[in-house]
């Protein structure tokens, strides 16, 4: 057996030995403990190698959570990342004529089944999900099967089952959307955002998953809703005009301002906004990339409101009052203070 002839270097280089020492691999552990017991001669060398391996520590910098998030966020803002860039569906791209044959087959099969089975209800595991999303620069209005209107903001998406409206009305949301919920007392409307749910009967409200502060904000315009945490079972009831911020396992109630829901009317509101806030808002709203040279000082802030305005108009107006130069090449804007 090779281990009897091993010198210290050989142990140090042996991958099985290493995985035993470093990972406490069960299989290896059984083998090596057994070997050590039955081979006292070479035991010393093995143990020295073991001590040395356990002692080695590298020097390096560890990434922070913030850096992890920052790099990912800036990747997602890039042109190269735009949603239409991703066209993956399923596991294998199939040649079109094969698709045509498959579709024809499925069509005839389902027709035959329908003829035979009539209107049998679908089995549980045949639920399909519908996803609708917007990349940066795009906002849309969606009508759900029950008449509920959803205004979907940029960088947001919703997901719901094709059973929606029959027994339940459940939507999963990431990003931001305004809901104008059709009244249906028999079937509560529920929006899921991570661990937080918002339940309503017939109301209009805004749900915003805030990337910056890591909170989820629900603003109620009319009617009444209940907002709760799935795990902690905490919940609050909102009346019209109120808003709640779900953050760090807490639910903080207050009143909402027009700014919280203005986006749905096509209005951009800046209230003493920092440059970084202005930059991020415009990038998300118009789907552009904004670079800044000589960023403005710490105290710089901007207040203003724009309704259904073009980016060109906003930048022009700002550059005049804030005294910066800008250069625009399609989706790429450079601002110089």
């Amino acid at each position, binding site marked *: 057996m090779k281990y009897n002839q091993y010198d210290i270097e050989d142990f140090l280089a042996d991958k099985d030995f290493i995985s035993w020492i470093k990972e406490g691999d069960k299989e290896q552990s059984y083998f090596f403990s057994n070997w050590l017991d039955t081979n006292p001669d070479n035991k010393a060398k093995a143990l020295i190698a073991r001590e040395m391996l356990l002692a080695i520590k590298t*020097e390096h910098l560890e990434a922070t959570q913030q850096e992890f998030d920052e790099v990912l966020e800036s990747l997602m803002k890039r042109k190269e990342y735009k949603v239409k860039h991703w066209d*993956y569906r399923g596991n294998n791209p199939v040649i079109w004529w094969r698709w045509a044959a498959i579709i024809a087959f499925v069509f005839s099969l389902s027709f035959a089944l329908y003829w035979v089975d009539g209107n049998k209800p679908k089995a549980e595991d045949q639920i399909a999900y519908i996803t609708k999303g917007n990349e940066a620069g795009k906002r849309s209005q969606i009508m759900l099967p029950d008449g509920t209107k959803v205004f979907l903001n940029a960088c947001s998406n919703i997901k719901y089952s094709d059973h929606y409206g029959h027994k339940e009305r459940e939507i999963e949301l990431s990003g931001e959307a305004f809901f104008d919920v059709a009244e249906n007392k028999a079937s509560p409307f529920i929006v899921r955002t991570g661990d937080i749910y918002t339940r309503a009967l017939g109301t209009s409200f805004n749900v915003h998953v805030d990337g910056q502060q890591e909170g989820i904000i629900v603003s109620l315009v009319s009617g009444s809703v209940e907002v709760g945490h799935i795990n902690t079972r905490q919940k609050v009831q909102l009346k019209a005009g109120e808003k709640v911020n779900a953050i760090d396992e807490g639910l903080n109630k207050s009143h909402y301002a027009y700014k919280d829901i203005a986006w749905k009317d096509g209005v951009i509101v800046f209230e003493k906004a920092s440059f970084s806030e202005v930059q991020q808002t415009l990038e998300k709203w118009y789907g552009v990339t904004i670079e800044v040279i000589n960023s403005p000082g710490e105290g710089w802030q901007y207040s203003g409101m724009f309704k259904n305005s073009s980016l060109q108009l906003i930048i022009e107006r700002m550059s005049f009052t804030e005294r910066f130069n800008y250069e625009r090449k399609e989706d790429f804007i450079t601002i110089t203070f």
Partner: protein
Amino acid sequence: MTNPNPEASILSTIQESAFDGNKESDFVNKTDKEIWKAFKSGSEVAFIYIYRTYFNTLYRYASQFCRDRDTIKDAIQDLFIELLNKRNKLSDTTSIKFYLFKSIKINLISKFKVRKIDYYSEIKGFDFGFSMSVEEVIINQQLDEDKKKRIADALQKLRRKQREIIYYYYFENLTFPEIASLLNFSNPKSAQNLLYSALTLLKENLAITFLLLRFIFR
């Protein structure tokens, strides 16, 4: 600072309803070859999965070349942007970690060439330095100092490439062909020989120290 937990990222909410019908959990049991292929074919979820899986390890590796956090972040970002840009033209790979390491090493080295900085002390990386520490309580202070000095002396004798190969072999679990490529060796055997020379050096200088340790602290 605590290590970033890829599960706790605020962006995990966004990824669960990905556009291509995949979930990141689908990729946990797939091979590197499959994950890479999914990414090449246009799966956004595969891309995010790769980012999450390798971000921390890339950061640690990059810090061997440069200690400046902004430069490291830029290098990682550039790497992933390049992946996005060249998605369709990428070759297949059986080890994503190796592929990413190779790319980022090239990126970081060229960054320094351009700046003509070789050893700008503030941002110089850790250069694959490592230490050896023994956890046991030392009763005799003198012995402790001697031991530390011996270890430091022994480690000093290692050449940079020997330290680098120890990093790849022990901490990143790369294979000899992969290590050879990272060190620009044409033959994997050269990598194996280099590792052995490093281990022999360590043995000759440290085995006694560790042996004594065992005798004293039965």
